[in-house]
């Protein structure tokens, strides 16, 4: 077996050193009833060529986003990732290392985390960022838990523009810990509705911008309302590229900001692994979940980096920890950080403008089709359209024609009464030809 270095001769020699008669002797503690006599009922070992063939065949049964016109967004975005990013994250020293528990031989990972935290802080406009969460949705859930701890209050108000799966993930976790979530009705442009819902038990208000329908909102007024009521504002961003252009959560008064970082440096991967960004105000840091990397010096006074404030964490604090997170999304954070260090502020702004320009072109093409109406105000790179028919079957029909048209909102929110609403998204990877293909196919399908 190509991954197992021991030869049978090695095994025999080692058993002799141990003083065990055979390998079974080492499993003596296993109750006899639970010892399997032979291999379980699964295929036997396979060569690399065979495995590659089998899994490549499965991959070939999927229609890769890049294989043709493609317009899905809704929390996961297809952007171009420079080849150098994927090359670098495959360096053995990054790929095959563990959490940097021994800082003297993990300065590579640690310096990257320090840089990542600084980048995320700048992006989200808040002074403290952690070393990553699993993804945007779990970061959102943890932010709500944190707000409840900070405020010692028991309710979270979720805006109707919050990604429904974020809302669901947040509800599941918060509910179990006794934090009530109050999700407002799904709405394309009603972020202001949260203000009225704030009450004295409100720990936090959770608002997404651009929201799940693609609409951006200046949430400063919500920050004011929340703060006036002693609640925190949590701002959620699912399209990190928008932050190249749009006001940061911090700029608008967020106490905690969480974002899905997938858009930068990471592929679609059918939904994971992604990377959750988490930032907050300085005063809240000791309630923050996740790892934090900090600057320090070595015995000779040279700058170095370590994991710090770990008294918040499970491995030190155990049942008093701020979160149970351990493994996070390190390599995705590295990819994010590399891509962003290529882009810089200048490049991210250009990328954001390009995305916006392509989305405008897409909107112009789609709304030229009779019966198709754009619903999203203040759109960045994604918007909802109302169709003269149900969106889900139409998307299926278009897929049959080689065009992946977008996400029917009913997929995320089946009971929301928006069956005729389709979410479409354009990025720098969307070409004029792609847009023509969608517009053409859509017009034809609608005309049938």
């Amino acid at each position, binding site marked *: 077996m190509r991954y197992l270095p021991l030869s049978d001769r090695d095994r025999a020699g080692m058993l002799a050193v*141990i003083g065990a008669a055979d390998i079974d002797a080492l499993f003596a503690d296993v109750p006899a009833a639970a010892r399997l006599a032979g291999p379980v009922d699964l295929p036997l070992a396979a060569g690399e060529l*065979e495995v590659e063939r089998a899994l490549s065949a499965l991959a070939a049964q999927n229609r890769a986003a890049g294989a043709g016109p493609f317009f899905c967004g809704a929390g996961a975005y297809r952007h171009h990732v420079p080849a150098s990013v994927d090359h670098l994250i495959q360096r053995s020293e990054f*790929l095959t290392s563990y959490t*940097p528990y021994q800082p003297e031989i993990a300065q590579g990972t640690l310096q990257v985390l320090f840089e990542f935290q600084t980048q995320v802080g700048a992006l989200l406009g808040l002074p403290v960022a952690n070393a990553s969460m699993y993804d945007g949705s779990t970061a959102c859930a943890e932010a709500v838990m944190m707000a409840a701890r900070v405020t010692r209050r028991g309710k979270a108000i979720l805006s109707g523009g919050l990604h429904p799966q974020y809302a669901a993930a947040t509800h599941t976790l918060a509910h179990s810990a006794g934090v009530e979530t109050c999700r407002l009705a799904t709405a394309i442009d009603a972020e202001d509705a949260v203000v009225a819902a704030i009450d004295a038990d409100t720990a936090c208000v959770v608002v997404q911008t651009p929201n799940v329908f693609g609409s951006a909102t200046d949430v400063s007024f919500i920050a004011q309302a929340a703060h006036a009521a002693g609640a925190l504002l949590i701002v959620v961003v699912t399209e990190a590229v928008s932050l190249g252009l749009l006001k940061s959560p911090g700029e608008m008064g967020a106490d905690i900001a969480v974002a899905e970082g997938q858009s930068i440096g990471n592929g679609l991967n059918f939904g994971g692994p992604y990377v959750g960004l988490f930032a907050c105000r300085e005063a809240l840091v000791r309630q923050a979940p996740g790892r934090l990397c900090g600057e320090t*010096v070595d015995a000779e006074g040279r700058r170095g980096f370590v994991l*710090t404030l770990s008294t918040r964490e499970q491995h030190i604090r155990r049942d008093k920890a701020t979160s149970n997170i351990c493994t996070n999304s390190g390599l*995705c954070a590295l990819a994010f950080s590399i891509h962003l260090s290529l882009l810089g502020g200048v490049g991210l702004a250009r*990328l954001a403008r390009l995305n916006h320009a392509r989305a405008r072109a897409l909107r112009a093409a789609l709304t030229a089709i009779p019966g198709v109406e754009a619903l999203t105000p203040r759109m960045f790179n994604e918007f909802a359209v109302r169709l003269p028919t149900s969106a889900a079957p139409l998307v299926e029909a278009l897929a049959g024609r080689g065009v992946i048209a977008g996400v029917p909102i009913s997929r995320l929110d089946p*009971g929301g009464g928006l069956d005729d609403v389709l979410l479409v998204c354009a990025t720098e990877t969307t070409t004029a030809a792609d847009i023509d293909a969608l517009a053409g196919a859509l017009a034809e399908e609608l005309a049938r």
Partner: protein
Amino acid sequence: MSVVSIGRATRPHTEPAVADPHPGRGLLQDEPLIFELDAWEKTGVDFPPEELGEAPDGSDLAGLTRAEPLALPGLSEPEVMRHYVRLSQKNHAIDLALYPLGSCTMKHNPRLNEKLARLPGFADLHPLQPVSTAQGALALMDTLAHWLKTLTGMPAVALSPKAGAHGELCGLLAIRAAHEARGDARRTVLVPTSAHGTNPATATHVGYQVEEIAQTADGHVDIADLAARLNEDVAAVMVTNPNTCGLFERDVIEIARLTHAAGAYFYCDGANFNAIVGRVRPGDLGVDAMHINLHKTFSTPHGGGGPGAGPVVFSAALAPHAPVPWITHGEGGFALVEHAEGEAAGALGRRCAFHGQMGMYVRALAYMMSHGADGLRQVAEDAVLNANYVKARLSGVMTAAYPDGPCMHEALFDDRWLEGSGVTTLDFAKAMIDAGFHPMTMYFPLVVHGAMLIEPTETESRRELDRFCDTLLELAAAVRAGDTERFTGAPFHAPLRRLDETAAARKPRLRWTG
């Protein structure tokens, strides 16, 4: 300046007055932060110039754009390559040498798996594109689920948890849902003292109170203590098996029986499944829920901290409460159940957006298929053999915490043998760095004083194990010889000397500020 012998004893040398290597000398490059490279006005990504003119006009984003342009450095590609390649060389990695972090299962990460995870059919697939266009992905998840269920002997699995700790949450939430479905509002979870920190943290995170179960002198769950603590308020017993002392819980079937008899569920922390995969099925032990760290047993790379994946297998009792999404198979091929309603109303809910860690599923399945049923069994055997070999070779000098009987996949030592030497577990670990090895897990589990938990994994050759043991024995001899400075000052040969963690925590500097 002290004269000591270091590394393999053949080449004694004079200890330099200052440590080496120094970044900035020879091949080891010094590297500033990206913020110190004077790249605020540049970018390393080119865009078609013609479209950039089109600034957002008033109709869309008026008043919503940043007041100040985002200030982040943008490096050219050559600079980026240098930056990260230089940094990378300051890391230890499994590709460099044995990485004996107990409980972490740092094993070889096959490169085939990296390649397959990058096939456009997997990597460039959107989670919300029509399922009719992602049948291969669902088939892969279904196959992975089949392997996991067969290997554990459990009837159901939730793939979506994003790491072990996320899986623990999932397991306890299912347990809570099961109790709630019966109208049973239990509040306590029992956890042994030796448990990993995530176990108690998880329990409180979902609103349970944690009560500790005592441990016997020989490193096992104290059954009597457990029995005494079990009552109608106990929702679950959370036990790690093989446990964090590297031992198989001999009485696991009894633990399960007692737990069930009290109306509680048995959660097993499966982080150490590597020791028994293919030889023992947790389902045969009475387990109700167990997470499997794909990044441990099934070798998806740790990536300096993640990402991982923590699927949870469930017993029949808990299966109806598994979270969405899950996969069904019907006439039209594979489908996804994505909402906890209708037929899925018993589900505990949703744990994250989308469907989990697809990138990790591809890698884990490739790993499983490569080994096969026979190879996975061999994995467990070699992992256990390697750990026992290390234990046997070191026990003469270092004090094994549980000397009697075999260990499983990791060998646990305490610090009795260091007593009075002036050298602590930490010092000893840092000296290992000088000798080219990553330290073992230290001071965990908490039940053992100055714990040193060594998990070699099955992907180490006998030669590398011998090199490791020889080094530790040589270091131990140096301890005995009173060479204290070699330990208390260590590391001397890492890119940096020992770092001041206290100073870091006292006045945290968590980002660059210029």
